[in-house]
């Protein structure tokens, strides 16, 4: 079986354009092909290959600066003492965790509307990564709060909605692995991600509401930090950027693997394999 590349399809369609009057539908088809070429796996693989080293360098620099600053130079908090240093891990992870469902919902919409292969690869690799990020945000959050709370877990609003988001992500992952047909799995997960994204926001607000009614004054909450001096928040900003870059790098690495698997029968991947 010979698998025609994009090129062949383009040629066929060009031929049709010449031989027949160009209809609006064919024009739409042609546009679609151009669009899918722009977001084609090959294009992404090559571009990300060029960008990856720079991203890794930037990430490493920011991480070294950020962690050194956080561990050595940040003054201990007058209330929390040295546990404040946990914030520099927890807050970046928690803030990125909130981005996963919107990211997957956008990717899912693109998958459903334009059927772009790359979007589904992003959605597929983002889900497990999101579960890991959320899990780490949960763990670091409970360790950070344990001293003040006197226990490893309380039903704090933030923690609870984070836990529920973790469950939703696990749902997306298990739906993906349960459906055998890759295309059906892509679309089903796209729908679930869009529904889940709406739900994450509803959950967040309802859990906050529930939490404030049950614990009118919980004292310490992970969400409300007093206004901090620059020597406290500048390293935090550095760490947020560093961990965002880390997220980008590990997402790109996984997407590149996914591309190699899904496009294994295409000419360019075979050539790439030969070259190694």
């Amino acid at each position: 079986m010979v698998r025609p590349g994009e090129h062949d399809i383009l040629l066929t369609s060009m031929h049709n354009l010449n031989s027949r009057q160009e209809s609006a539908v064919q024009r739409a088809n042609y546009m679609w092909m151009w669009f899918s070429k722009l977001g084609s796996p090959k294009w992404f693989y090559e571009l990300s290959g060029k960008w990856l080293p720079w991203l890794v360098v930037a990430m490493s620099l920011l991480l070294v600066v950020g962690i050194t600053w956080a561990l050595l130079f940040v003054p201990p908090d007058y209330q929390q003492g040295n546990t404040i240093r946990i914030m520099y891990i927890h807050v970046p992870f928690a803030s990125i965790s909130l981005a996963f469902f919107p990211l997957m919902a956008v990717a899912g919409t693109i998958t459903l509307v334009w059927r772009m292969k790359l979007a589904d690869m992003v959605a597929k690799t983002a889900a497990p990564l999101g579960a890991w990020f959320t899990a780490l945000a949960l763990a670091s959050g409970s360790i950070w709060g344990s001293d003040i709370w006197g226990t490893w877990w309380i039903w704090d609003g933030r923690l609870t909605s984070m836990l529920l988001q973790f469950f939703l992500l696990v749902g997306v992952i298990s739906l993906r692995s349960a459906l055998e047909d890759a295309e059906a799995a892509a679309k089903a997960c796209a729908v679930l991600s869009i529904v889940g994204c709406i739900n994450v926001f509803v959950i967040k607000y309802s859990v906050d509401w529930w939490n404030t009614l049950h614990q009118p004054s919980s004292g310490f909450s992970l969400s409300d930090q007093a206004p901090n001096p620059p020597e406290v928040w500048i390293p935090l900003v550095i760490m947020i950027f560093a961990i965002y870059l880390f997220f980008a790098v590990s997402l790109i690495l996984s997407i590149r693997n996914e591309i190699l698997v899904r496009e294994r029968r295409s000419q360019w991947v075979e050539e790439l394999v030969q070259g190694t």
Partner: protein
Amino acid sequence: MSETRTSTGQAFRATLKRDLLIAYKRKNDVVNPFMFFLIVATLFPIGITPEPERLGEIAAGVLWIAALLASLLAMDSLYRADYEDGSLEQLLLSSHPLYFMVLAKNIAHWLVSGLPVVLVSPLIAYMLNLPPESYLILFVTLLLGTPILSLLGSIGVALTVGLGSRGLILAVITLPMSVPILIAGTLTVQQTLNGASLLGYLAIMGAMLLAAISLAPLASAAALRISVN
């Protein structure tokens, strides 16, 4: 040969009637979730405490969680038979908007699986020693809340209808989504008991129901198209 096409309203009624008829003929599908609700509600006093005071405190939550689980259990029968015998394809190929067909199926399903649970809830509430002034509120919140559970569950079932065994994955997908309704339902009961005004809470639940009616069948319809594909 008749020449008149049916209106969407007629097709909607036909689907609703058909699903109610199927439920009438398959009484097990109706009775089982209902019995499940009763049994789960019975397990709580046995597992936690028979002491009336403490039971009264948790009664609203127990009833809501039991209703949630019963709704989840009942969901399984929503599209499965239609998927297996090909009726779902006929539904997708009708010239009427799938939104209304899905809505008809969801309504029929709620009438036979959700409504009985709502109707029996005051009795269970009594047995769990819920303060009597909360009966009506609990009843109304369940009446507004269980349709939302059905509509949300429908999305999960539509996504997984093509899978061979899907009991657990359905739970993993739908239960976290039901949390806001659980919160709204139980808070309404508790807060009105503490003297808050009922109207605001019911407005929130009503808004949730309206949002679910207008959005959830769209997602279910999209999911069904994917599953049948």
